[in-house]
């Protein structure tokens, strides 16, 4: 049995930053493995360690820079990686869900996995949609926002919990092949060990262009166009305490006493 994990490299914005056109200035960005995908990788690697899974393959749509993040997933136990990128993608300011679905579909067709794990959302542009869209496209069953997974290999069924709002979980049985979108907290993602990091260096990252996955430029024509990016107008009327730590703490203590919640 093979598991495909979608792994995105996400950008995080520094505390102070500037917007240039419809982008945050490159020098204010730091790149990291998407938090939700970290949990998805861990879940796949645990399934492999427990037995039923023979191979864990990651797939990333991203430029060469993302190989650093991909190596991180490999160091945590994924066996090999596929990275899809093309010059034609370079100019897109926003990869919409449809584009990502088309690209990932092509990789699914080639890899033929039994289970696809994605994150619930990407931390930067948070569509929260790629996994379920992909499932529909490739004809797999699916479950979104999964925070517990118990896989019954003989029955080919994943018993999952879907985390709803307000401390309620939905218990669902999902037949494989399936796509599950993984929620944080489902497991404890491991840190890459030194040995893992060393091994990752010799694992394969196959790079594929549009042509290689059998798609043409039409597959990446996005219907979504970002027309503006700005810092949200602060609706804040917060009183910010000025001064050093001692002074601000004193002001805060006064407020707490005024409100009668602390003495």
């Amino acid at each position, binding site marked *: 049995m093979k598991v495909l994990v979608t792994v995105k490299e996400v950008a*995080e*914005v520094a505390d102070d*930053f500037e917007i240039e056109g*419809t982008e*945050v200035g490159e020098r204010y960005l730091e790149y990291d493995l998407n938090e939700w995908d970290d949990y998805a990788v861990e879940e796949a690697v645990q399934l492999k360690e427990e037995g039923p899974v023979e191979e864990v393959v990651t797939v990333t749509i991203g430029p060469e820079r993302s190989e650093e993040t991909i190596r991180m997933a490999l160091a945590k136990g994924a066996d090999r990686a596929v990275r899809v990128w093309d010059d034609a993608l370079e100019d897109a300011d*926003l990869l*919409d*869900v*449809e584009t990502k*679905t088309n690209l990932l579909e092509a990789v699914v067709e080639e890899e033929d996995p039994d289970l696809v794990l994605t994150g*619930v959302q990407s931390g*930067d*542009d948070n569509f*929260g*949609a790629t996994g*379920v869209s992909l*499932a*529909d*496209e490739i004809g797999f*069953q*699916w*479950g*979104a*926002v999964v925070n517990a997974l118990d896989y019954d290999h003989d029955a080919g069924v994943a018993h999952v919990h879907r985390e*709803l*709002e*307000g*401390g*309620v979980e*939905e*218990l669902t*049985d999902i*037949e494989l092949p*399936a796509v599950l979108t993984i929620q*944080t*907290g489902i497991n*404890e993602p491991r840190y890459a060990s030194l040995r893992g990091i060393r091994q990752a260096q010799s694992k394969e990252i196959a790079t594929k262009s549009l042509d290689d996955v059998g798609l043409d430029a039409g597959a990446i024509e996005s*219907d979504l166009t970002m*027309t*503006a*990016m700005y*810092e949200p107008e602060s*609706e*804040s*009327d*917060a*009183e*910010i*305490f000025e001064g050093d*730590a*001692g002074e*601000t*703490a004193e*002001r*805060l203590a006064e*407020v*707490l006493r005024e*409100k009668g*919640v*602390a003495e």
Partner: protein
Amino acid sequence: MSDVLAVAEHRRGELRDVSYELLTAGRQVADATGGDLHVAVVSGDTEAFADNLNREGVDYVHTVGDGEEFDHDVYVQAVEALHAEIDPQVLVMPNSVNGLDYAPAVANRLDLPLATDAVGIEYDGGLTVTREMYGSKVETTVEVGGDQQAVTIRGAEWPAAEGVGDAEIAPFDVGIDDEGGATVTGFEEVGGGDVDISEADFIVSIGRGIEEEENLPLIEDLVEASDATLASSRPIVDNGWLPKNRQVGQSGKVVTPEVYLAIGISGAVQHVAGMKGADTIVAVNTDPNAPIFDIADYGIVGDLFEVVPELIEEFE
């Protein structure tokens, strides 16, 4: 093709708040497109739901009676069939957990461009949505092309529709193909236990700014010195540093204390959903742009490792 179709949401016999917000958002778009507002309600006691959804500005409520609780196979087929029937300009769905479980599949199947988690929608010959990126640190406007579009809206961004409308309520027969493959077997309540943070007057809540589990005693000291109740954002619970019953937010507890002191918490929408009802909100954060300051009444832009020890001294 100027109508709007909005899909309501319910759980365990009750319409969820976002359903009424969808009516407001849907009406707003329908006014701009010059069309009717159609509302779909799928599964459960659809007759009772339809009566509640018949609020001002709603033109039609379509009921699909199959099933009791949410089942994405039923929802996808029902919305697909209604979309074919109504041929709306814009399809509006909730960006809820169940919305995440069917809206992307609907959009894919109908070949509609999808803009998720909208906090604003404009229609002026074309559709433009406002959405956030980078944990609410920036806002973007996105033009959504295509002949017809699908949007999911963030909860609590539009006011709930009110009043009573004169909508036509009509059952809609889909002929659901029960292909199965995903079966809901039940529900489970989580986050119970000995403490109930929703009863607390004064909450000190800690987020990822605490960095390491070893630093948690600092906050526990503050909690003890100021006689507060300890709570946290999600990552602290995900890491197993505090039990689930301490988590504030969309998937944790909703709290309404006199004072909510958020320390090292950025103020993500899913966190804010659980604490925006507090009388007074105070935030301590190193990042002056952290969204938590937008809803705070008082703030300290500073390092918690410097501020908290001083604060403890104030109460000792």
